[in-house]
Structure formats: C-alpha cells, structure tokens
C-alpha cells in the first residue's frame, strides 16, 4: 500500500536518509526500528512531504507521492501521529479533532466515533490541548489522525513516556486499526512492543534500511532485533 524505495533526504547539507526502503501493507503493523538518530522520524516526515526527498520514490497504491505538496498528502488518506504529539496547543480538543476531520472526507459523525474509542476525550471537548495530561494528549493525537479516516496510519513512538495503562490503550487502538484494514507504520523502540505488535519490522540505521523481518524471522532469531537496537 505505502512503498518507499531508495529514499534519500537531507536537512540542508546534513544527509539524514541515504536509502530507505519500506513496504507497508493493508491490515498489517509495520514497525520501523532503529537507534536514536537513525532517521525514523525523518522517514515519516518524508512520507508527509514535510521533508522533500532528494532521491528515491514514495508511492501510495502505486501513485507517486514524491512531488505532491505536503498539504495534499493527508487527503490521499495518510494520518500522521508525530513524535512528541504536536497538537495544536491553544485549540480545544474538539478543534483538534476538527482539524483532522477537515483533512479527510469524513462527516461530522466521526467525532462521536473517536469519543467511542477514547471516552476521556469526550469529557474534555472544550479543554485546550496544552492543558491535557500526557496520556490524554497522546489519545488526542491518535484521534486527530484517525479523524481523517486514513488508509495509512503513521505512528511515531506513540507510547513514549506513557504509563502502562495508557500504553495498553494506545496499543489496543493500534491493533483495532490494523484489524480494520489500515496499513499501520509504527516507529517503536521497545523490544517488547515490537514483538507484541509487529507483523513486519524494517530495521533502519544511519539513514539506511538494513532489511525487513517477518514475524517468523523475529521468532526464529530474537537476538537480531536486540543487536540492531543495541540493547
């Protein structure tokens, strides 16, 4: 569904990506694993058009995304949950959800579905995003992305810094989205999370992918992932 081939990207003169390949399929959770600074966030930003690749190809269902301006990517059906949440801090919960809805084609009913997924958000619709707790902010970031009814969901370390119950909730929603047929790309650094969730894992190191493992590969050689992450 979402394919990256030989993607290169740089911030000014600093080369950050030097050959990223990835193929995320519908109904699968595709983890992107690598050490700090490996280029995971930059890979997702490249998909969103927020960094323009210097070389390589990014395609959604075969349609090239590389030349598409950033503001037209979401409408193609890609929902983005960035690292550090990046909500619109002075907007209310309802307004943040509305930003997600406008980016896609969903009707106003989508909000109630999001509240069904995260009831806590329903109690706080008029509260400003910056005053939410960390866990609530993460729920809102996920709900904002889902409000555009994406076919592809990009999640960048969505459980970073959350307490276990909140982590479980986010993971549960991630699995439900996979089961609903979304292609999920999940940047994750915790081995237990990767083993529990991933259908496939792409290893990334200094801006290059170093292969993709299936669930079976992971089970056969658990040490490989451990070595790659250097833990």
């Amino acid at each position, binding site marked *: 569904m979402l394919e990256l081939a030989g993607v290169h990207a740089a911030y000014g003169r600093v080369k950050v990506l030097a050959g990223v390949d990835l193929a995320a399929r519908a109904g699968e959770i595709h983890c992107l694993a690598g050490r700090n600074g490996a280029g995971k966030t930059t890979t997702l930003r490249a998909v969103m058009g927020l960094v323009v690749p210097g070389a390589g190809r990014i395609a959604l269902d075969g349609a090239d995304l590389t030349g598409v301006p950033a503001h037209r990517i979401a409408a193609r059906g890609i929902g*983005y949950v960035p690292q550090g949440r990046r909500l619109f801090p002075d907007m209310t919960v309802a307004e943040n959800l509305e930003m997600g809805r406008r980016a896609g084609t969903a009707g106003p009913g989508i909000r109630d579905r999001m509240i069904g997924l995260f009831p806590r958000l329903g109690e706080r619709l008029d509260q400003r995003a910056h005053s939410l707790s960390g866990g609530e902010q993460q729920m809102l970031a996920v709900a904002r992305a889902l409000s555009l009814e994406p076919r592809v969901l990009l999640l960048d370390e969505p459980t970073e810094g959350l307490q276990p119950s909140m982590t479980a909730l986010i993971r549960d929603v991630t699995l439900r989205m996979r089961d609903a047929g979304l292609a999920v790309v999940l940047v994750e650094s915790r081995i237990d999370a990767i083993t529990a969730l991933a259908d496939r894992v792409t290893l990334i190191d200094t801006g290059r992918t170093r292969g993709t493992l299936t669930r079976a590969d992971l089970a056969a050689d658990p040490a490989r992932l451990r070595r790659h992450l250097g833990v």
Partner: protein
Amino acid sequence: MEFGPHLMLALLEGAVTSAVLALTAMGLSLVFGVMRVVNVAHGAFFMLGAVAAWWIAQLVGAHPALGFAAALLAAPLLVGAGAMLADRLILARVGYDPERTIVATIGLMYVIEQTVLMGFGPDARPVAPPFDARIALPWVERTAEGLALYWPWGLSITAYKLFVIAAAAAILAGLWALMTRTGAGLVMRATQQDRDMARAFGVPVSRVFARVFGLGAALAAMGAVLVVPIQQAHYLMGGDPLLLSFIVVIIGGLGSLPGTVVAALLIGMTDGIVSVFLSPTLAKIVATLAVALVLVFRPQGLMGRARA
C-alpha cells in the same frame, strides 16, 4: 470646564484613538502571529487605505455618506488585494525568512510611499465625514434636590467620532468571530500554532499566508478609512500608526489578539488623557516609557505566553 467633564472628553478622544489603533495594530499582530514576520510596510498599507478612501470618495462624488460608505468597503479590499500580491511577489520569494522580510518590507514601504507621492502629490487631502452632527453630552451636578443632569458648555463630541468607536468595535467583533467560529479562522490558528502540523493536516500554508497578509493590510486600511474624515490623507501619514502599532503589539504580547485590544485601549486612553491635560508630546513619551517597562519586566507582553 470642570475636571469631570474634561476627563470624560479626554476619555472619548482616547477611545477614538484606541479604536483606530486597535484595528491597525490587530493587522500587524495577526501577520506576526501567523506568519512570524515583521511587516515594516504596515504603516504604508494604512496610508494606502487613507489615500484610496480619498480617491474612492472623489470617484463616487454624490453625498459624502455615499462616498464614505463606498470607501469603507472598497479601500480595504483594494489594499488587501495589493498586499496579497506583495506577498506572492516578495515575501514568498524570500521564503518568509524573518530578516530578509524586514529588509524587503522596508523596501516595499518606500516603493508605496514614493508611488503615492508621484500619483497623488505631497498635499494632504480631506475626506468629508459621512455626517457632521455634534452631540452634546450631559454631566451630573449636585443641586438642592440631589443629583441632576446638565449639559456643560464644551462637552460634546462629533457623531462621527462615536461612529468610529462603534465601527471599530463591530469590525473587531467580526474578526473575533472569524477567528474563533469559522473554518478559515481555524486554519489560520493552526498555521500560527504549528506550521508543519497544519501542513500535515491539509492546510495550504502558503495560501493562508497570502490571505493573512491581505487581511492584516485590510485591517490597517479600515483604521485609515475611519481616520481620514478626522485627519486627512497624506503620503507620509503611515509613520505614526506603524510606530504605535509596534508599541501596542509589544505591550499586548506578540501575536496575542486579545492582548492587542487591551494594549490599544491602554495606549489610546493614555494618549487621550495625557494629550488633553498635559501635552501630545508627553503622551508619546509615556507610550514609549510603557514599552520600555514591558520589555524589561514582562518581555512576552501583557497577554503573551512566554516561549517554552
């Protein structure tokens, strides 16, 4: 005149200044807040609004009220369209880089002023107010039977000045509704709060910038149209509004719209009171002092949020 009526007169004059200043400064604040650039040509857009008002009023002729109404509608549209063009031709080309934008808008200001000087000449031109009634205002006095109203000699204001206050309040209320109740406002706020995330959620940021720059200039032009029946249009009239708008925006907090209104009231009222009781020069000194105090003790402004 006694102190009470005199103070009331000063407050009314202050309210007129505040009203025009709030509109003008709001434009500067909006542009800075959403686009993160300082528009040095803002005063030139103000001046363009005044000159356009004179020109439109001439064109329409007929009754002053008709000419003025046409100017109030058309001048902001013209100036806004011009500003959008400047955004596409200049600001977008320098990539909204903060320093280069300052230099570019200094150039733009100069170009606008010189063009107006060539086309319109160095003379100040009046625009007739749409109505020229004067309203006498009552004051209270203590009599043997208790408090009673009387009309002190000299306590009056033109109906037009009251109109300026009401019009500015209505425009600001409209702006508030636009920002908080409409999709266009939501998108502008999204761009202001996180440009990249706005893009990731489908906001065409460069188009929003053009609109915000146009809206900012149109607000200055509205302030100017309201002011020309009191002050006359002149090609160098943009200097004071620019300076005062900066003062207001710094005191109110960069990019904070409510802060801008509060600061405009503060500066306008102080200006009214100090000008009436002491001297206009002293009023400017007080405003400058206020900025210095804010910069030292509350650099983020009265209602601005400290940068994280």
